C-alpha cells in the first residue's frame, strides 16, 4: 500500500478497510461487550463493567486485524462472522435468562 | 524509607542495573569499555543487571508499598534509562563512573 499513487481503483478497498476498522471494529467490540456481560462470573453490574473494560482491547485487535487481512473482503468477513456469532449467542443467553 | 531519598537511591540502582545490561551488548560494550565482552563477563553483567533491577523494585516496595511501588519502579526505570541512553553517545567513558559517583553523593547528608 505504501507509496502507491492514488487512483480510484486502489482507493476503494482502502476506504472500505477504514470503514471496517472504525465502524465495523466498534460494532464488533460492542457486541462482544454484550456477550461478555453474560459470561463474566460476577454480579450483573460488575459483569457489564468488566466486559466494557475489556472491550477496548477487542476494538484494538479488530483494527489490527482489518489492516493485516489479505484483502478488504476478508477483513470484513473477519469482523462480520464473529460479530454474528456473538450476537446469536447473546440472544440465546438472553432467552435462556428469560426462561429461567 | 524517606521518599525523596528512595527516589534518589532507586534511580541509581536502576541506572547501574541498566548499565550492566547494556554492557552485555557488543555495541555498548565497545562504546564504553572497548572490545567484545567475554562469555563469562556477559553472564556476570546480565546477572548483576537483573539483580540490581530486582533490588530497585524491592526498595520501591519498602518506600511506597506494593501498590504504588511498582508504578514508581517503572517511572524510575524509564528516567534512569533516559539518562543512560543520552550518556552513551555523548560521554560513554563517563557512564560507569556515574553509577559510582551518583550513590556517593547521597552519603554526605548522613554525616550532618
Amino acid at each position, binding site marked *: 500500500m505504501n507509496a502507491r499513487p492514488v487512483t480510484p481503483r486502489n482507493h476503494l478497498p482502502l476506504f472500505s478497510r477504514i470503514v471496517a476498522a472504525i465502524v465495523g471494529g466498534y460494532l464488533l467490540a460492542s457486541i462482544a461487550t454484550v456477550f461478555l456481560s453474560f459470561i463474566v462470573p460476577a454480579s450483573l453490574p*460488575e459483569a457489564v463493567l468488566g466486559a466494557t473494560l475489556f472491550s477496548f482491547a477487542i476494538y*484494538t485487535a479488530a483494527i489490527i486485524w482489518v489492516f493485516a487481512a489479505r484483502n478488504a473482503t476478508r477483513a470484513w468477513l473477519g469482523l462480520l462472522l464473529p460479530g454474528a456469532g456473538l450476537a446469536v449467542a447473546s440472544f440465546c443467553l438472553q432467552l435462556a435468562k428469560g426462561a429461567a | 524509607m524517606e521518599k525523596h531519598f528512595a527516589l534518589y537511591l532507586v534511580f541509581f540502582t536502576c541506572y547501574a542495573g541498566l548499565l550492566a545490561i547494556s554492557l552485555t551488548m557488543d555495541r555498548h560494550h565497545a562504546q564504553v569499555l572497548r572490545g567484545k565482552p567475554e562469555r563469562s563477563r556477559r553472564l556476570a553483567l546480565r546477572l548483576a543487571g537483573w539483580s540490581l533491577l530486582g533490588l530497585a523494585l524491592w526498595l520501591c516496595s519498602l518506600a511506597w508499598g506494593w501498590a504504588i511501588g511498582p*508504578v514508581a519502579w517503572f517511572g524510575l526505570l524509564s528516567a534512569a*534509562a*533516559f539518562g543512560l541512553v543520552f550518556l552513551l553517545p555523548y560521554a560513554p567513558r563517563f557512564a560507569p563512573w556515574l553509577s559510582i559517583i551518583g550513590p556517593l553523593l547521597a552519603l554526605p547528608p548522613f554525616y550532618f
Partner: protein
Amino acid sequence: MKQTFRQSMSWLHTWGGLWFTWILFAIFLTGTLGVFDDPISHWMREKGKAGEVPAMSAEERARAVTLAQDYLVRQAPRAEFWSIGLPDEDEPALRVFWRETEASPFQKRTLDPASGSQLKPGSARESEGGHHFVHMHFELHAGTAGIWIVGAATMAMLVALLSGIVVHKKIFADFFTFRPGKGQRSWLDGHNVLAVLTLPFLFMITYTGLIVFWATYMPAGIAARYDGDEERYFSALTDGPPARPRQFIEAAVAPLAPLMLRGEAAIARETGFVVVEHPGDRSASVRIFGRFDAEAESDRLVGRSSGTALFDAISGEVIDVQKPNSVRGGTVLAVQQTMNALHFVRFGAYPLKWLYFLSGMAGAAMLAAGAILFMVKRRKNAGNEFGSATAGVYRVVEVLNVAAIGGLVLACIAYFWINRLLPLDVAERATREIELFFAVWLATLAHAAWRTPHRAWCEQLAASAFLCLALPLLNLLSTGDWLVAALARGDGETAGVELTALAFGLLFIAALRHLWRRAAAADARDETLPDATATATGG
C-alpha cells in the same frame, strides 16, 4: 496487495499515526502539564502571597451554606443541580455552581463566605489556572464532541503502539541505542528509544484514559442489559440507593445548614461540598461530601471515600450514609478504580507526579519525533503517495508539524504570560485567558504557513525560550512576587512552576543552537536549507 504482516503494520503505523499525531501531541502535552494543575493554579491565582486561610467553625460553615442557598434560590430556583464548595486552604471564597438543564452550560460564581455577596472581578486573579490544561487534555474545550475526538485519538494511539512494536524489529538489540547527529537515523532512534523506554507507561496511560470514560465510549453493555438507564445501573454498581427521577411536583428545598451539620455528625468529618439534585422538585436530594484528606490518601494507590451523607431535600429524611474509608462495590469496580487512579496519579505525592511528568513529556517528545521523522524521510526521498497533490500534502504536514508542536508549546507558555498581563477587571476573565491561548495558537499556525519550515521552527522555539526564561521576571514586574521570594518563604509550588519554565527555556535554547549549527553546516556544504529543519526538536 500481497504483503507481510510487518509491511501492513508499517503502513498502518505511518498513516494512522500521522493523521492523529498532532492531536495526540496536544493531549500528551496538556495532560502532562495537567499533572501539576494545582501548582499551576497556585501560581496563576497568586496563592503564594495570600496567608493561610483560617479554618472555619461549624457556625461559619452553616452560615456560608445558608448564604449560598439564598443566592442559588434567587439565581436558579429550578436548576438540574446546585453545588456549593466551602472555602478550604486552597480557595478562600465560597463557590456555587449550577446547571439549568442537562444541555445547558455549567455556571460558576464566587461569593464572599461572610456576606454572601458576589465577589467582584478584580478582587482576585480570576483564572482557570491549571484546569485549562486538564480540560484541553480530555475534551479540547469542546464538550462532548471533544471527549469523542480525544477518545478516537486515544484508540489510534493504542493501535499505533501495537503496530509500532511490530514495525520496530530490533526492540531489544536497539534498547539503549541513540545515534545523534545522523539526520533521519537520529530521529528514528529518538522516536524508538522514547517509546520503548516508556512503553509500560504509554500502554497504561492510553488504556486507562479510555477507561475513565468507559460508559461514554462503550455504552453497549448498559444499553443492552439495563435498557440504557445509567442512573439505575450506577446505583446497582456502587450499592447505592435507587435513583430519584424527577416528579414534576413543586417543593422547596429545606434549609441546607441543619442538614449539613447532621451530615457532618453522621460521617464525623467536615463538609467539603454540598450538592443538591433537582432543587425545586419533589425528588430533590442533598448530598454532603466530606472533605478530602489528601495527605492521608497520598500513600494509597486508590483514594478512599471521604464519606457522604444523602438526604431527602424536602423532608430532610436520611436516605444513605457512607462512612469515610468504607468500600462499596465488588472486585471489578475496584479494578476500574485502580485504573482511574493510575491515570490521575492522585497518589504518591510529588515524587510520583514528577515521574508521570517525565514519562508524559517523553511521550509527547516521542510523538513529535515521529511527526518530524515522517517529513525528514520524505524531504530526502519523496514518495508519491498522493499523486500530483503530494507536494501540497507535504506542505500541509510540514505546517501542521510546526503549529501543532512548536506552536502549542508556545501557546502553553504564552498562557502564563496572558494570565499576568490581562487586566484584573476584565469581564469573564478566565474565559478571556483561554480565548487568548487559542488566539496565540492560531497565530502560530498562520506564522508556520507564512515562513519556511526552518525559519518557522527557529522563530517559534526562540519565542518559547524567551517566554520561559523571562517568566520569573514577568512575575516580579506584574505582581512583585517571584522565584527567589518564593524559595525564601518555602513556597515550592510557585518556585517549582518558575524553575520548570527556566528548565524548558534552557532546553529550547539548546534545541535552537543545534538547529543553527546544522543550518550553518548545511550552508557551508552549500546545500539547501530545508534539510536542516530535520534537526528541530519538539520540546
